[in-house]
């Protein structure tokens, strides 16, 4: 096994130089001469690095790939820490002073570069209370995922794909241009498709195709909606407007136009058109979320996806749906939101209840966790339908909290599968005997997911309930019922895996009599990090909630105080 050290170090060194240049070079100047902390460091850098690494790895033979996987893994981890460091520093004002107390349609660190002038497309990025928590979450999850799946096979291509996934996801969250938004929206599909296809389980081919086609079809409907919106908007003039079409893809311009138009009794684009377009956009987002009855791609994708893929899929990718709803249709079509308010509530409630009930009927651990995601995403819809800032902040906090808790759920499932070669609940009893660490993490994650106070999920659930009762009254009994059912399926699955088994325990049959091992150090570290942050945001929710609350207030002041 001889690593061609010189060659490798050469390329590695080159990458580091490129990375350093890209991350810290005061990037592309525009009229506003401040440093662009978003475009290159957060979005471009991970994607470019991963493309270089993938290109590099694809030139190698199979046996060499295994050798270079080790340094690539380390390099990817280091590369993924740079966006994390930057986003953390932005939050704490270590790099520059960022004012997060933003008015509606105001963005921090906003940057705009004209791109396709003929149709009004620009590279327009910015952060606010809605997107920043998601961006931080993504930058946080990528390194954690890499650590938690430290021993994945074919690492030479696996880890760069995770990195690319992170960059694309951040792109979705920072984009302030519909065109850009859609590009990143679809770009996220590519790494995830390959992650499932190459590292997935037995039915990975079917699951990957289903995942891709299902969500892609929905996205196409969304795209149609966006294009219709583009052509129906009033023509205007200005740098953001296309020189040929006279229209713009710029979200900020659209938002301010729509808000200005919606004042009084006017309705932007007319009531019927609002309702149609709102429905088209929402369809794309609901499938991504996913909401019942568009959820069936999720269990398939999760069960077949590798652990790292599942962690990012549940942790951030599902939130793209919720993010999209909160970002685009609500801001442009507030009247349609009121029109569909009860429908959204009903879909949320159905997702919540149906997801939980189906969970109780599962025998596959990972499938159960996947359905629990469906159930929790329903909470977000309830928050949106509540029409209260506290409900919107709750929806946001739910996205954030679930983004920390659900990767932990899937990390536990992944470790379970990895070590015991089975996902069946009840395939083993007395796991606590052999694997105390995994048992502790499993119990912790399960408890966090069922909404135990002082862990992150509780705050969101409490706030949603508070917002829900005044609007929908006794329907609150159904979410209450779900709280009990959620506890039932989680406790039931723990009783049949961690506990019982008598003095000897009952190892899974799939191990053929071997002693079940405990989890590896890297899995341990990955889950520990997630657990620590679950506690931090559960005990001190104001860290993240302050920004979310400000955003929700700004949204209500900006969008709803005019026209309703």
């Amino acid at each position, binding site marked *: 096994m001889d690593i061609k050290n010189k060659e490798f170090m050469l390329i590695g060194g080159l990458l580091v130089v490129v990375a350093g240049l890209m991350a810290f070079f005061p990037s592309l100047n525009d009229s506003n001469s401040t440093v662009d902390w978003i475009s290159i460091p957060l979005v471009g850098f991970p994607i470019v690095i991963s493309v270089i690494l993938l290109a590099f790895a694809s030139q190698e033979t199979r046996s060499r790939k295994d050798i270079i996987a080790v340094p690539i893994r380390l390099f990817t981890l280091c590369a993924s820490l740079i966006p994390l460091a930057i986003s953390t520093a932005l939050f704490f004002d270590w790099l520059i002073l960022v004012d997060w107390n933003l008015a509606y349609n105001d963005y921090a660190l906003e940057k705009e570069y004209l791109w396709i002038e003929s149709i009004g497309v620009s590279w327009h990025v910015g952060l606010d209370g809605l997107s920043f928590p998601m961006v931080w979450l993504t930058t946080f999850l990528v390194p954690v995922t890499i650590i938690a799946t430290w021993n994945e096979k074919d690492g030479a291509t696996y880890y760069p794909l995770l990195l690319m996934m992170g960059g694309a996801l951040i792109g979705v969250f920072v984009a302030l241009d519909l065109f850009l938004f859609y590009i990143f929206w679809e770009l996220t599909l590519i790494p995830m498709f390959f992650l499932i296809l190459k590292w997935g389980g037995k039915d990975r081919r079917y699951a990957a195709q289903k995942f891709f086609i299902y969500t892609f079809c929905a996205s196409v409907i969304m795209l149609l909606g966006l294009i219709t919106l583009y052509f129906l908007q009033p023509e205007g003039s200005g740098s953001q407007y296309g020189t040929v079409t006279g229209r713009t893809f710029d979200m900020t311009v659209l938002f301010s136009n729509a808000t200005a138009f919606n004042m009084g009794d006017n309705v932007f684009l007319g009531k019927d058109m609002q309702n149609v377009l709102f429905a088209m956009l929402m369809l794309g987002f609901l499938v991504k979320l996913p909401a019942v009855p568009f959820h*069936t791609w999720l269990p398939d994708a999760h069960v077949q996806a590798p652990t790292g893929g599942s962690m990012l899929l549940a942790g951030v990718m599902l939130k793209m749906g919720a993010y999209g709803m909160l970002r685009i249709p609500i801001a442009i079509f507030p009247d349609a939101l009121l029109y569909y308010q009860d429908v959204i509530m009903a879909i949320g409630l159905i997702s919540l209840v149906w997801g939980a009930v189906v969970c109780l009927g599962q025998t596959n651990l990972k499938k159960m966790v996947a359905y629990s995601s469906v159930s929790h995403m329903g909470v977000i819809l309830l928050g949106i339908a509540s029409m209260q800032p506290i409900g919107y902040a709750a929806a946001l906090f739910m996205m954030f909290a679930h983004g920390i808790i659900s990767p932990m759920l899937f990390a536990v499932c992944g470790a379970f599968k990895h070590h015991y070669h089975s996902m069946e609940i009840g395939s083993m009893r007395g796991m606590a005997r052999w694997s105390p660490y995994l048992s502790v993490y499993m119990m912790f994650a399960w408890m966090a997911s069922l909404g135990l106070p002082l862990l992150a999920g509780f705050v969101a659930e409490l706030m949603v309930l*508070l917002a829900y009762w*005044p609007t929908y009254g006794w329907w609150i009994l159904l979410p209450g019922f779900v*709280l009990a059912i959620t*506890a*039932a399926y989680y406790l039931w699955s723990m009783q049949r895996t961690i506990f019982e088994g*008598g003095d000897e325990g009952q190892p899974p049959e799939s191990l053929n009599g071997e002693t079940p091992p405990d989890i590896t150090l890297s899995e341990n570290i990955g889950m520990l990090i997630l657990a620590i942050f679950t506690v931090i945001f559960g005990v001190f929710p104001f860290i993240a909630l302050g920004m979310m609350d400000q955003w929700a207030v700004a949204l209500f002041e900006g969008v709803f105080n005019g026209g309703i």
Partner: protein
Amino acid sequence: MSESAIIDYAVLIPLLPMLAFPVILFLGKLFNGTPTWVKNAKEGGIIALTVMGASLVLTLLVIKEHMNHVGSANIFTWFESSWWNAETGAITTKVFGVGIHIDHLTVMLLFVAAFLCFMINIFSIGYMNTDSINDNRNHRFYAEFVLFCSGMLGMVLADSFLWLFIFWELMGLCSYLLIGFYWERPSASYAAKKAFLTTRVGDVFLIIGLVMLWNLFDGHLDYAYVFDKANIAAVDSGDLQLALGMMFIGAVGKSAQFPLHVWLPDAMEGPTPVSALIHAATMVNAGLYLVARMFPFFSGAELGSLSTLAIIIACIGGITAVMAALIAFVQMDLKKVLAYSTMSQLAYIFTGLGSALWFANNGYEELAAFAMGASLFHLFNHAMAKGMLFMASGSVIHEMHHAHHDIAHHGDDDHEHDDDNFDAQSMENMGGLASRMPIAATAMFFGSMSIIGIPLIGGFWSKEGIISSAWQVALKEPIFLLPAMLILIGAGMTGFYMSRMWLMTFAGKPKTEVAKNVHEQTAWIPIPLVILTFMTLSAFILAGMHAGNWLGNFETGHYSSFLGGVGSELKHVFLNDDPFLLVLTYIAIGLSLILGPSFAMALYGGSLDKGQKAKPWMQWAINLSDKVNSSSKFDNSAWANSSLAEALHKRLYFDDLYDAAMLKIVVGFANISAIFDTKVIDGVIKTIETTSQEASRRVRSLTTGSARDYIMMAALGTLVIFMLLWGVA
């Protein structure tokens, strides 16, 4: 200044144990099995003891400072969120704070919790660390123990219903962990799940109640705002009653009242210190605390508007009191008798609280204060006595276990496991232990007397107050006759099952070889028993100090001269001016002192073995029981074989019913749903998929590659175009 100084440290009371949780776990993981850790640190027991001791000291300082005035402190703002008024467009900020609130209720429960946690911690070191089954995992016990204590102390100190709920849930988690301490046993694992799920059902209603309350009180759950009389008056009392009713369901679950009582007896699967901690001294009192906290709503709301809820609370109490006592009649497991006894006594307190709330809501302030004081005093007495009873029973079980181990494995060290089915908890294997375990026997003797309500001892003072309060309400509100009657009957039943338990365990001849070889020999265990025995006996001191008055009415409760206080209490109880109450008192005493114990003596009494002698304060009771037993010809075999006894053995079928409902209906529905999800919802998607594939296959088959077909199609196409054009023209 000193006031603000001490209350600033009050946050440490729950915080210290909470921080000790990870420390003990971590150190335990690090040093597990090393001699220092096992011998000197008692596998974390000493760390826990230090922390609980510190909490107790702080508690006493806080109590000393706040005996007579309310204190509160804000710690930090948990989070803020906003509310939008759709009509005006105004957005207001709602603050969710964290803080500390101390009044007489806090002081009393804080003392109970901190003191008993400390006592039980001492007991645990004796109990847990000398049993080989716990070796190398006691650190888990102590870690969960301190976390639990932190939950209880935090719940009591919290200054809002929100944080009360948060710590309430934390206790729920810890009780799950502690009940399932022996996780490898399916029964323990099942019991833990059952406890968590049953209380969770209550908790769901509690949080919905809190949501309703938050909405009613304009986004506030902190006591300072919601207990303000002006704010209560501004609230629609019908809505308030609904909200409080929902919250009460949470209390029902936590305090194991009918119909959410099924978890408590099973929870005895946990180690005995856990039973003492959770099921006697602390957690089950949380529900009572919640209801007692509602008092200002009842006194502040419109007259009579919340009466229905007060009546419901009292009725739930009355029903549970009798039901639990009935089931306790047939239990053979020492701890299960105590478990049902706990349920029954908590039910008394609920009835008392119900009376107090009814009085408060109907404008009888003095009577309300009296009933409230009696209820809370009973809570105090019960916690002390029941904590002690559980620990004493633990001592008995522990020594039974050791004796059995010595006999069964004498000189045979290969058999570490108990292969046979000897049940160290069954009273059928005990008997005659009064002389062999004098400390435990004494503790249980006085503990039982306190629970029964033998005059002048412990619970007597408070139980009389509860019964008389309930009857006084019944005179004004006829529906109240039901709970009033039930708890009066319950008094006699308590006398029976508690006496039965003591006699079966300590009097008579040893029923097994094991019971003959029992000795009280474990260090640490006797300390809390002795202390608590004196606590129980000294209840008359507290009664003399007008504890009832003080608890019932914080503002005007007063300390009279000590002897005068005792005298007036005695006069109040035995020579009441009101003839109705006088008669009632003697009926209650007659039932609990004479009728219940007499039946028990007739059935289960008996003298000790020859040569064995109990301590003089118990010997008379044993002799008496022997006399009653030999002179009576009472035969209960017909009763024991009746269908009622069978139903009682089956716990009145509640557990079976709930299990069936859960397994058959809920899980059945879930399984069908899971199938529906894959077959129908996903089936539609799959159908679309296969249909589109099939369609594409068909379309593809048109591409035959033969020129003749293409020419044919081109011709047809041209024809169609022409026809279309023609039609349009």
